[in-house]
């Protein structure tokens, strides 16, 4: 069965969203928004890395801090593997530094979620424009 334009559009939106999740700014890069992609990539990655440096890898805790972990997962699928490493228990996390690290990494994830939604929405609007033209 031949694919319709709507199927292709949905597939493209999915690819944009997936790429934006795998690499922060990747969705915008695919849409030829290079400057925007670089700004998003640098800011999200820097916020996430600073959070990890402040709180240690233990700030990613898939066991006893699940809500934070869900927000952290929005950064990239790599967080899943970092979560597996941190569950080994070799990376201590405590006190104010642990809290701040958790907040930084989670906010970085939520910012990337905003960028994912924005990239998909931008791709959707462009698809509508092309369909009209």
């Amino acid at each position, binding site marked *: 069965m031949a694919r319709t334009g709507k199927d292709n559009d949905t597939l493209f939106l999915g690819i944009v969203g997936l790429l934006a999740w795998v690499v922060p700014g990747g969705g915008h890069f695919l849409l030829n928004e290079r400057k925007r992609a670089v700004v998003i990539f640098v800011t999200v990655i820097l916020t996430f890395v600073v959070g*990890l440096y402040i709180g240690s890898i233990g700030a990613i805790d898939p066991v006893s801090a699940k809500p934070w972990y869900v927000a952290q997962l929005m950064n990239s699928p790599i967080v899943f593997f970092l979560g597996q490493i941190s569950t080994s228990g070799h990376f201590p*996390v405590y006190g104010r530094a642990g809290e701040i690290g958790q907040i930084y990494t989670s906010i970085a994830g939520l910012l990337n979620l905003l960028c994912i939604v924005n990239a998909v929405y931008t791709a959707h609007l462009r698809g509508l424009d092309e369909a009209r033209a």
Partner: protein
Amino acid sequence: MNPLTCTLLAGFTTPMRIDTNAASMLWLLPLVVAIAIVYKATKVGQIRARAFARETALLIGSILVFIAVAALVLYGVAWIVTEQLPAMAGGSAF
């Protein structure tokens, strides 16, 4: 491995030492900058360095002013509840 690289990587395995004091609130500043940059990156039509920096700085300023106002209001409420209300209660029939 390079000692500097080792030191940097080791930093990711133990938390930094941050005391629980008023100065630790300053850690919100880089976060506010990151939030403002990403938010503006998704909002502006085209990214031009000067205009983008101006808009981001404006947003950072707005967020900080709002936080300061919220902190003042909360401080005022806490002062009334912990200082004024007990004094008023002490001066009455109690």
